[in-house]
Structure formats: structure tokens, C-alpha cells
């Protein structure tokens, strides 16, 4: 029989193993993305046929995405711009909405109201993205066609609005935590000096919770840029750099999800190029998360004494 101490060490090791699974999983995701993406740039050999790769620069900055044409072109700039514009536009809606909801919840709402509003935000967060996409497609698109003189109901604006409502709960819950953790002494000091509650929020609470608010905004944007079903169903799907908010766009996740089903596994450029897009997408969200993590650690909100 093993003695107690050794058993304890063994158990601790097992728990450590479980905790390391996250590192392993993340590592495997990166490994498969990179290994399936690299043939895009270095070329590959499929059934005795040698395919030449496309340079990384041409891939990122090429203005034409024509994977199935006679002379295929592999530039993903239109897809990147689609993602960037949809994310920016949805952020313009989601950031004020999310932060204001957070301020209301953390500072103003009476307990009874908060007990209703918080679950409501959580339920909004739990709506499956495919349902929101379907709503945009079946309900919002016809309304848009009616309201504006446009050709497509599924377009950048529609997708951005739908995305915004998916990002709001993320922004709200993180921002609320940040606002909530501002020490009461700071607020009391401001109120005692004669500032109104709003002036206290604006000049004391918000500046003090700025790092948390930034984290909230970054993670909200990261959520929007990676969200798939909504942009797949309501962004319109045209791989062109948009000129107006009513143009149909094809953000990166939409391109991957729509086209992967048509490719043959590991045998054609299209397959590898979609993995390369996924790699670009992964790198972007990874950087967003690192940035959020960095801000959260470097400008950690601490007690009143050190502020």
C-alpha cells in the first residue's frame, strides 16, 4: 500500500494534468491550424500533381478572393475588410449599449430591478447564434428592404446589428464587474465634495474602472470578429471590399464556414487556404485576448490605498 503522502502527491499530479489539458488543447489547435495552413504558402503535392503556393503578402493583401474560378485567386483582403468593418460597426452599437447597461446595473439600479435585468442580459447571451442569424435573415432583412432603397436585405448593417446584440452581454458583464469593484471610498469622497451621482460616475468611477472597461470592449470585439453563424447567414456573402454599410460582405468566418463543405480534404489549394484564413482569424482573436489579459494584469484595479 502506498503511504498517505505519496498518494497525496499522486492526486495533486492528476489534478495538475487535468489543468494542463487546456494548454494541450490550445497547442493542438495551433498545431493543426498551422500544419494545414502552411501548404497554402509553400505549395503541396496532391495525387502526383504539384501545386505552387501563394506568397504570404499576396494572400493577406490580395484584393481578389476567387477560389473556384478558372484562374483562382487567393487574396483575402476583402474578407479581412469585411470582418473589420462588421466588427467596427457592431462595436459602435454594442460598446455604448453594453457600457451604459453596465453603469445602470452597477450604480443606479435598485436591487429589485437588478435581479430582473441581470438574468435578462444572461438570457440574451445564451441565445444560440444560429437563432440570431435566422432572426436577421427572416425578420430584419425584409424590414430593411422596406425601409431603405437597397438591393440586399442581408448586408453589413444587418449583420452588425445582430452581432452587436451578441457582444452586448459580454461587454456588460465584464464592465459591470469592473465598475462594481471601484472602492466605495472613492465614490463617497466625490459625493461628499458635492458632486452629483452622475458627476461621480463620470469623473471618478469610470476613470477608476478604465482598465476593466477596456478589457470588456476588447473581449466584446474579439467575440464579434470570431462569430460565425450570424455573418454566415446575414452578412450577404459578397467577397468585395464594402463601400457602404448596405453592401453585402463576406467576413472571414463566413467564408470558412460556407466554403469548407465544398472542398476535398487535404487535396486542393482551397482547403489549405481556408485553414490559412482560420489561422489569421485565430491570430487576431489570440492577440485580442492577450491584450485584454495584459491590460487586466498591468492595470489591475486594487484597493483605495494604492489608487
Amino acid at each position, binding site marked *: 500500500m502506498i503511504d498517505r503522502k505519496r498518494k497525496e502527491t499522486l492526486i495533486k499530479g492528476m489534478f495538475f494534468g487535468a489543468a494542463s489539458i487546456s494548454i494541450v488543447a490550445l497547442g493542438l489547435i495551433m498545431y493543426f491550424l498551422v500544419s494545414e495552413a502552411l501548404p497554402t504558402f509553400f505549395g503541396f503535392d496532391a495525387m502526383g500533381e504539384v501545386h505552387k503556393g501563394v506568397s504570404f503578402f499576396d494572400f493577406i493583401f490580395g484584393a481578389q478572393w476567387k477560389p473556384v474560378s478558372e484562374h483562382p485567386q487567393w487574396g483575402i483582403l476583402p474578407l479581412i475588410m469585411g470582418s473589420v468593418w462588421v466588427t467596427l460597426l457592431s462595436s459602435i452599437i454594442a460598446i455604448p449599449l453594453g457600457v451604459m447597461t453596465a453603469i445602470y446595473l452597477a450604480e443606479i439600479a435598485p436591487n429589485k430591478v437588478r435581479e430582473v435585468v441581470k438574468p*435578462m442580459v444572461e438570457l440574451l447571451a445564451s441565445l444560440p447564434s444560429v437563432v440570431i442569424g435566422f432572426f436577421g435573415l427572416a425578420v430584419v432583412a425584409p424590414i430593411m428592404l422596406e425601409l431603405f432603397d437597397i438591393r440586399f436585405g442581408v448586408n453589413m448593417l444587418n449583420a452588425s446589428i445582430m452581432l452587436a446584440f451578441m457582444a452586448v452581454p459580454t461587454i456588460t458583464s465584464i464592465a459591470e464587474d469592473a465598475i462594481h469593484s471601484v472602492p466605495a471610498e472613492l465614490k463617497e469622497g466625490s459625493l461628499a465634495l458635492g458632486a452629483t451621482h452622475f458627476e461621480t460616475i463620470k469623473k471618478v468611477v469610470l476613470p477608476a474602472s478604465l482598465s476593466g472597461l477596456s478589457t470588456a470592449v476588447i473581449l466584446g470585439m474579439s467575440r464579434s470578429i470570431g462569430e460565425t*453563424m450570424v455573418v454566415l447567414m446575414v452578412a450577404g456573402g459578397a467577397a468585395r471590399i464594402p463601400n457602404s454599410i448596405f453592401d453585402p460582405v463576406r467576413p472571414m468566418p463566413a467564408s470558412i464556414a460556407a466554403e469548407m463543405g465544398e472542398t476535398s480534404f487535404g487535396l486542393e489549394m482551397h482547403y489549405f487556404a481556408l485553414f490559412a484564413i482560420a489561422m489569421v482569424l485565430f491570430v487576431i482573436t489570440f492577440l485580442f485576448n492577450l491584450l485584454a489579459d495584459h491590460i487586466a494584469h498591468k492595470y489591475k484595479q486594487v484597493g483605495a490605498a494604492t489608487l
Partner: protein
Amino acid sequence: MSEMVRESIIDQLPNEPALLARRRIVEGLWFGLFQGAVLINGAALVIIVGYMVYYGFPAISWDFLTGMPTEGGLAGGILPCIVGTFYLSLGSMLLALPLGVAAAIYLHEYATPGTIMRVIRLSINNLAGVPSVVFGLFGMAFFVASRDLGGLGMGVSIASGSLTLAVLILPVIIGTSEEALRSVPDTYREASLGLGATKWQTIFKVVLPAALPGVLTGSILSISRAAGETAAIMFTAAASYNPQLAESIFDEVMALPYQIYSLSVSSTDPDATLPLQYGTSLVLISLVLGMNLIAIVLRSKLRRKLSK
């Protein structure tokens, strides 16, 4: 003297009462705006759910819920989708729950702050931020792909889908389980250790039972997350038309979220398929919102108990 100082200060304050009134008005306007933001969120939830209920309810019947799809999924019932979603979310939960809880135990009960802990946390946070379509591609290349292409060769199946979803919900389970462990007072641990129990005995017999309701809440939340996920199962588990119930974990299955998407792409006659889509959406959001409501109620009960 002090009277004079007071006078001069008051002189410096320009038109005090009027200014204060203005400041109060500004405050009122902003607070109104904050409330407006909340109302917009509420309206979004009510309108989306309302549409699904209003148009989906007429489509739902006993035959719809328990029937097989016909005509390539464009008519008939959705039983295989319900069953498929059930298998996928249950499978991913069975895989992710033990791992997630164990990881949370390590992070909260054993780990000391340092580089290793920082790296683990960073991985969990980044895993939580990976786009779901990237999970789908990863699952396709790792679990689905045949052995000679570098994968595990499970094919498009419940097994591949559950494994992919398990990786996707792992961060959720770790997060909620850690919160549950945090809510167990340290006095419990101290009492148990003081009686001579080892750390493992303390965790297994004292801490875990006390954290169980919180862990349960977390698992309900992640089941609902897995049930609503589409992009991750697109290439790993879902079939757009497979009118039979799965017999093995290596069968591909229909699933509710994928069905909603696939109808909107494959349909040539939107008037005929819209009711089906609304009906399927209603079933899906009833499941997901229902589970979330249960979790919310459980959690608020738990918090009330803890604060007593």
C-alpha cells in the same frame, strides 16, 4: 472673520442654486439614457423570443416533435435533430465535466501563483476566445480526418462532435467550477484539515459536496452552450439530412442548430420552410433558455443560502 471667509467663498460660487439645478437635469438625462440602454437590450430579447414563439408555436405539434423528416428535411418532423442535439451535448458534457472540475480543483485548491499558473490561466482565457468555426476546423483536422491524413479517423460523427464541443465548453466549466469552489468558506477546509484529514480527503469529502450545487449550475450552462453551437459541429458531426436515429457514436447526426442553418441555405421555397425553421428555432431556444433559467434560479438560491 470666519463669516467673512464664508461670504467670499459663496461669492466665488457662480449662481449656485441654478447651477445645481442644471447639474441635476444633466444627471437625469444621462440616467434616462442608461435606462434606455437596458430597455433596448430587454426589447431585443423579447422581440427575438417573441417572433420565435409567435411564428414557431403554430408549427409545433406532436408529429413535428416526434416525426421523422421527409423530402430532404424540407418537411416532416425533427425528432432526429432533437435526439442528435441531446447526444452531442450529453457527450460533450460527460467528457468535459470531470476534466473541467479537476482543472478547477487544481487552480483553486492546489496551485500557487507563479508562471505555471499564469500560463494555464492564459490558455484557458484564450481557449474561451477561440472562434467556434476554428474549433470546427480543428475538430475536422484532428478527430474527423482519417489516420493517413494525420487525424484520429473518427469521421463525421457524434464522437468527433462531442470531443470538439467538449474542448469548446471546457473553459466555461472550469470558470463556473472555480466560482463554486471559491464560494466554499475556508473554515470548512480548516476544520477538516484540523481533524487530521489529508488535503485530498478534505477536497473529496468536504469541499466538493459543498461546491456541488455551483458545479451543477455550471454544467447546465455549458450543456445549453453546447446545444446551441452550430459552427463547431458543422464539419464534425452534423448531417443536413439523415432521417434515422443514431445507433452508434460513430454515426453522423442531425442537430437542431444545424438544421435551422441548413434549411435556410438549401430551401428553394422559403414560404414552405419558414414555419419549419421557426418551429425548430422555438424548440432550440426553449431548451437553451429553459436550461439557463434553471441555472439562474439554482444559483440565486445558492447565493441566498451562502449569504445567510
